[in-house]
């Protein structure tokens, strides 16, 4: 404050600051032994840097893993990602079902009153199926993949033609005596005229997650 005498404690504080910042005497330096800053500081810095980098990467990785749990589970479980392809004889086995595609006939004629709409045709697919499932009914969905990546579902908007065609393959039965799995099964698929089919996909809720059968078309 103006008009007041200088504080006598100011001088002592200045002395204390001077002592704290003063260079140590050579005797004190000798007594303390060699300084460790020069040899160890860069090494310790490198270790600190590496540890921090590893911790950062691990932290971000863990966060990303937990944050994407639902997306990963949904993507994997709900999608078709693992194609099971046929052996040299055309057979595919996804226990307890074995099947193979034995016929694919384009532009099938189904008789008067059952013709497809203008610009569409029916593709007939015939399968041989065997199943060791005798405890429960199982069905397998059939789709046709075309060059544009479109999937055309069998049994949709096709005529009901008695026992000639099924909308889904029968892949298991709970009554093997009276209602066995037919060894030959055929289905119809409605496809636009511009579709170029490349393969047939067979899928079932009973298949392992993300797995499906892919049968190339000739």
């Amino acid at each position, binding site marked *: 404050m103006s008009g007041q005498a200088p504080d006598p404690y100011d001088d002592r504080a200045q002395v204390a600051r001077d002592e704290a910042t003063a260079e140590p005497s050579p005797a004190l330096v000798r007594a303390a032994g060699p300084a460790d800053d020069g040899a160890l500081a860069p090494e310790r810095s490198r270790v600190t840097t590496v540890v921090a*980098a590893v911790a950062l990467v691990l932290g971000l990785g863990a966060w990303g893993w937990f944050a994407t749990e639902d997306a990963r589970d949904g993507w994997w479980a709900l999608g078709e990602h693992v194609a099971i392809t046929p052996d040299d004889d055309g057979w595919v086995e996804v226990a307890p079902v074995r099947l193979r595609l034995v016929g694919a006939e384009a532009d099938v004629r189904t008789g008067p009153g059952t013709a497809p709409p203008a*610009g569409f045709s029916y593709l007939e697919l015939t399968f041989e199926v065997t199943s060791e499932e005798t405890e429960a009914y199982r069905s397998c969905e059939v*789709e046709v993949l075309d060059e544009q990546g*479109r*999937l055309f*579902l069998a049994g949709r908007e096709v005529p009901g033609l008695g026992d000639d065609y099924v909308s889904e393959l029968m892949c298991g039965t709970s009554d093997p005596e009276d209602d066995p799995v037919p060894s030959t099964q055929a289905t119809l698929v409605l496809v636009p005229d511009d579709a170029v089919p490349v393969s047939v996909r067979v899928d079932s809720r009973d298949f392992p997650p993300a797995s499906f059968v892919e049968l190339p078309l000739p």
Partner: protein
Amino acid sequence: MTRARWAVATMAVAALGVGGLANVVDDRYLASGWHTTVHGVEGEDVVGGTFQVHVHGATAAQALADDEPVPSAGWYVVVDLSYATTDEWSTPEEVVLVDRDGREFTHPGGFGSTGAPWLAGPDIWFRGTLLFEVPEDALESLSLVVRGERPRPILPGTVARVPLTVTTTAEPLVVERGSLLPRRER
């Protein structure tokens, strides 16, 4: 500052930045459903996600045609539209009417599958009518919103939105089931 300290400081800033970005994404998108809206107009095709939609028009009346006309306390709206998918056979997860205040009107209960969305295939178009029930003050500002995929907050999606010009009539409305169209027809 030494190079090591710069590296540590950079990593700390990066960690804070990534965390902040994650919070922003979670707050703005994931928590409320991450979707993009594609705007269309009546009479033209619009593609929203995996669905292609073509709205022909919309009509409103205070009764539905049946053996005995079914009255409404508000207005029934039937939307005449065609749609197909782009990839595989599927039914839209949800189709709603939205007014200018953001109110959403879904398919009314008690009608079963009548006037509800139907299954369509890849480039396999079906035409029919969807049924809604709205209050009178919503009639002039309705848009049709087609949500093709399940509105999952964990994955981004796309919806199609088409503003409607609603015509009112005194005649009870008729609801048509979706039926398969010849190729390239709408």
